[in-house]
């Protein structure tokens, strides 16, 4: 029973940060139509913000996480302005530009922090016991912040004018433009939010992983599986698919092994594509 609880807690943690990353990726794709291959590197950039601010410069952890969110959000704005806006009518161009930017971010990380893993001491050693399973405060913090941020994003999208504008652009950019919604403005907001979510995921998990300049590779693969399962363009789908994928992957890793878990994760994606090619929530409920 302890094992089941511990596995469930592990899965909740994994679902939390994966949901942040996947929702960010969906925001960017939904509004701008760009498949951002550099999204894993935005996660990495968030992690390195914490390496720099918290581990090296000794700023408080929370402040460092906020720094990661803002910094990576600004990187997102720069990407929108310098890469994606000039290539707006060329979706393949945006994709290729993001691959180039991915390599630039990796190289900058190597120059700034070296090739080896960054060392981030935990902000707390505290932990609680739930039915015999252990949940550290560090992981609990990731879960709580992810829930709060996703709830705030949902409220923003459903209740604010900017949110309506984003959803309108995601549904039909041309029609939204005819209604006087600025494409540049919505693209900026989407890119900031999308990048900031990846950045905050990296910042929050930095003490729990070993950040390296190349950590984005494994993150982006998982994120793509999640958004394909959830339905490309669906925020709700991304969250639900993140939870589904995290639970399946974590339980299979624990009760079988990690290699089988990866195969099952890919099989899950294939099964969803066969049964429902648009993904679980694709097309029907776009952002």
């Amino acid at each position: 029973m302890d094992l089941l609880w511990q596995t469930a807690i592990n899965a909740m943690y994994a679902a939390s940060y994966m949901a942040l990353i996947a929702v960010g990726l969906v925001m960017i794709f939904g509004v701008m139509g760009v498949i951002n291959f550099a999204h894993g590197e935005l996660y990495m950039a968030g992690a390195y913000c914490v390496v720099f601010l918290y581990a090296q410069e000794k700023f408080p952890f929370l402040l460092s996480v906020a720094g990661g969110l803002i910094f990576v959000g600004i990187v997102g704005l720069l990407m929108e302005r310098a890469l994606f806006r000039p290539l707006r009518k060329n979706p393949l161009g945006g994709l290729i530009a993001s691959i180039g930017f991915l390599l630039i971010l990796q190289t900058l990380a190597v120059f700034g922090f070296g090739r080896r893993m960054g060392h981030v001491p935990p902000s707390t050693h505290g932990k609680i016991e739930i039915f015999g399973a252990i949940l550290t405060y560090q992981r609990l913090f990731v879960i709580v912040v992810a829930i709060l941020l996703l709830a705030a994003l949902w409220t923003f999208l459903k209740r604010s004018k900017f949110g309506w504008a984003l959803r309108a652009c995601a549904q039909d950019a041309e029609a939204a433009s005819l209604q006087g919604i600025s494409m540049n403005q919505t693209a900026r907001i989407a890119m900031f939010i999308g990048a900031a979510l990846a950045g905050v995921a990296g910042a929050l998990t930095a003490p729990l992983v070993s950040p390296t300049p190349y950590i984005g590779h494994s993150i982006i693969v998982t994120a793509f599986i999640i958004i394909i399962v959830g339905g490309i363009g669906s925020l709700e789908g991304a969250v639900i698919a993140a939870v589904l994928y995290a639970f399946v992957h974590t339980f299979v890793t624990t009760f079988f092994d990690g290699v089988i878990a990866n195969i099952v994760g890919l099989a899950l994606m294939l099964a969803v594509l066969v049964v429902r090619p648009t993904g679980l929530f694709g097309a029907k409920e776009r952002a």
Partner: protein
Amino acid sequence: MMRKTLDRKLSRRKFLGTTAASGAALAATGTGLSRVSFAAADTIKIGFLAPLTGPVSAWGKPGLDGCLIWADWVNAKGGVKIGGKSHKIEFVGYDNEYDAGKARTGATKLIKEDGVKFIMMLGGDTWPGVEKIAAREGMLFSTLLPSDLTPDTKTLVAPCEVHPIYNVTGVEWLAENKKNLKTAAICAQDDALGKPSVATYLAAFEAAGIKMVDAPLFFDPATTDFAPVMTKLLAKKPDILCLDTCYADYVHPLCEQAFQQGYKGQIISCTADFYQKIVEKTSKDFMEGFVFQFPDFDDPALNAKEVNFVNPNEFYAEYAKRFGAKEWSAVSWEYASIMDLWADAAAKAGSAEPGPVLKAMKAGGTGKHAFGDAKWWGKELFGIDNALVGNWPVVVIEGGKAKIKAFKSIPAWWDKHSKLMIKHMTALGQMWNQR
């Protein structure tokens, strides 16, 4: 701004003149350099073909750093004497990023363009990319992973690290000194480094009468969240947690997870690179008694007369001065120790050419290994006697610092338990004729 500065301080003619003069000076410097190189035609180039970036770089880059110290020391004394003539040593590095394709490109470049006389590699997943080139060119290669050896790899030697066979010494020491430990669980990344090491640990545990609580847990090398891996490992409450030959990027989060999930038992691992950082992430108490196989070279035990590595404590001090003590890794000294062996063999052979050096290196079937005199061995396990095997240290973390507790003999263990090793290697498909 720049244009203004140009207008104010430099006329176009002056600018062009200065540029031309600088160019000429640079060209002169260039000519000077090539003249120096030409004058130093006696310089022997050694290739260093290992991962210098990426997740496996901890087992490449620190080795190159160690080699640079070795070269500086040897060159300061006039170089290596071969055939009555002194030769300076120059290392040419190539980053293979632990990728077989890049290793192939690197080997070709080092042999054809740089004219190296010997190439040192980490081996493992990168060796298949180089194997045919080595056979075709007759180039002498070294690997840290003797599992690369087969009867066909005639110019490949494993003269330093008999990975993973030396891992038996840590388990043997544990069984002798902590008799209360009866069960173990093991995990490893699913690759060419993890699997033979798992087979070795399984053999060593069986020889020591320690039972495995579960089948070995293999995880994807792309894993970033180790909580599920650790949850599974600890599920059956083992006395010993074995981290196999996991890369540093995995050992750290695995230890952290074990700490966070409340594990208080014994940990054994092949390596514990940058272990001070693990201590910081967990605690001194948690890491107390952690057993692994790679000493810090400031350890006084390395000054024993049996140890052949030259000035180990001074080497460590120089390494710490140049790169920082916390950057010391399992391989910081290993490639340098291979160079000791190579230089000795080249001096004996009177030539730096690969063939004569290999012959001199293996003459008499024995050699001077870093940790003592050793013998060329491996026929039963690798199909060729190209691994240099002798004693290996068992290292334990005490009070947050690594200390050598014993030097144990690998051949002595092999003489008693070789059948077990072959059984487990065969079961995991790791014998030379299965790979």
